[in-house]
């Protein structure tokens, strides 16, 4: 059963077509990856699916709700971790979770239990009452994922969950994503520009280039399609002609650098 479907989802910014006729059907329980360089349109797709940005044309449904006509219902059934750091550094980890538990209407009687189990699951119990400012990059990301999972959403959107993290922290985030899918059956849509991340986490990937999907399938299938011994990097170069410097621009570069700086 498709839990997320997009039909010709398109977004223009003036002359620029950031996302061009994006069409996919993601099955329940999948970890679906959007892969591509900066400026490929991955984040714009996610912003439309989480109702932050209206599509210029086309539409999509998440858990059966239309992202434009039923935006309020969509917001109840999704979790979202934006690319930039979204945990509040001036609060403790516990407080970050508490505020979101309230905003998502988790009943008062269950709140504390829910927050504690999220902190345990993400390995943050000891740091729960420290200010997030003192956390490492990996801890912040795990906290943010915990925040987005408190209400047990059937669909989770992770925008570049491991950008700016060192290899150890990245491994720990990957492990939690895998467990979430196993333990809760969460459908996960993530973006990444690390090919090995897509390869090890995703059941299927869509390779995006200049706003379009240029290849879609299971990583093994895509690699086999290009040739023996091919890596996902080769698949990517094969489909995009190797133009990895596609876009991004000053503002995006600034934001990415700032994120990595804060992650230390």
């Amino acid at each position: 059963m498709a839990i997320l479907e997009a039909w010709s989802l398109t977004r223009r910014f003036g002359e620029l077509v950031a996302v061009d006729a994006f069409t996919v059907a993601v099955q329940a329980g999948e970890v679906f990856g959007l892969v591509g360089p900066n400026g490929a349109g991955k984040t714009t797709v996610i912003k439309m699916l989480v109702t932050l940005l209206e599509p210029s044309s086309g539409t999509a449904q998440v858990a059966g709700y239309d992202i434009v006509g039923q935006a309020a219902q969509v917001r109840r059934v999704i979790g979202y971790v934006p690319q930039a750091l979204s945990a509040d550094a001036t609060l403790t980890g516990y407080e970050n979770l508490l505020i979101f538990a309230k905003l998502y209407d988790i009943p008062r009687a269950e709140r504390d239990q829910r927050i504690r189990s999220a902190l345990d699951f993400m390995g943050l119990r000891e740091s729960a009452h420290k200010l997030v400012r003192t956390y490492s990059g990996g801890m912040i990301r795990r906290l943010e994922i915990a925040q987005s999972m408190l209400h047990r959403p059937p669909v989770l959107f992770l925008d570049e969950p491991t950008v700016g993290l060192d290899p150890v922290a990245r491994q720990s985030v990957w492990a939690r994503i895998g467990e979430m899918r196993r333990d809760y059956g969460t459908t996960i849509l993530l973006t990444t520009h690390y090919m090995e991340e897509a390869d090890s986490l995703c059941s299927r990937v869509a390779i995006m280039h200049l706003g379009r999907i240029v290849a879609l399938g299971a990583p093994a299938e895509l690699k086999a399609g290009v040739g023996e011994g091919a890596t996902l990097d080769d698949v990517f170069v094969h489909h995009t002609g190797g133009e990895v410097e596609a876009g991004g621009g000053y503002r995006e570069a600034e934001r990415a650098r700032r994120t990595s700086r804060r992650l230390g």
Partner: protein
Amino acid sequence: MPLPTLFLGIAGFAGKTLTIAELEVRKLRHEPIELFSRAVQPALWLVIFGQVFTRVPGIPTGGLPYISFLTPGILAQSVLFIAIFYGIAIIWERDLGITYKFLASPTPREALVLGKALSAGLRGLVQAVIIYALAALLGVALSLDPLHLLGVVAAVLLGATVFSTFSLIIAALVKTREAFMGVSQVLIFPLFFASNAIYPVALMPPWLQVISRLNPLSYQVDALRALMLVGGTSSYGLAVDYAVLSAVSAVLVFYGGRLYPRVAV
């Protein structure tokens, strides 16, 4: 809509608003120093500006010593200065990524806006406590009638709502920190000087009197002047003051809720 559903809706909305305000209060609890550094400016106005202008004869203050006349104006100014820079915090939170997660949550946009406004109001109330203490030291005869104090709390909360939401709307329209700073610098002094905060409207040329009547700050000052001081009076009538502040608040919160998501685009 059946009554119980409506009631639940209102309770839910109020709950979300309070949660957003709670978030800001928790932040302040971790870093209370800001509250006190904010008090320096009003203290300087009262102690230096107030002391000098008390010596100017013939300011038509309606029989009040000038320092008493000035005190409610400085409270209103203090709330204005806190609230008008709320927009910069919104842009900052957007740059950090915090805003995206709030907007993708099922929180009504108006509750996000009103929660921020309420937190501006709470900061304003801390200023009020400090200003009451300073004014008492300077010999201002302050009214401590509970009903008057309640009215002051309401005027501070409403004034903070008007100006913090106004600021948020500007932030949603201009979107960058640089442009926001430019616009708010241009707005803040006309708002302050084209009001009855530090001198009576009667001293103004007619065109400025008209502008001051259109300025919500004047209605906040008018209410504060009637309620904070022993022997204070309202020029416009308290009912008019609160009606204007409430109506402007409601309109701005409505549009603020509409425009807030634009910050994230």
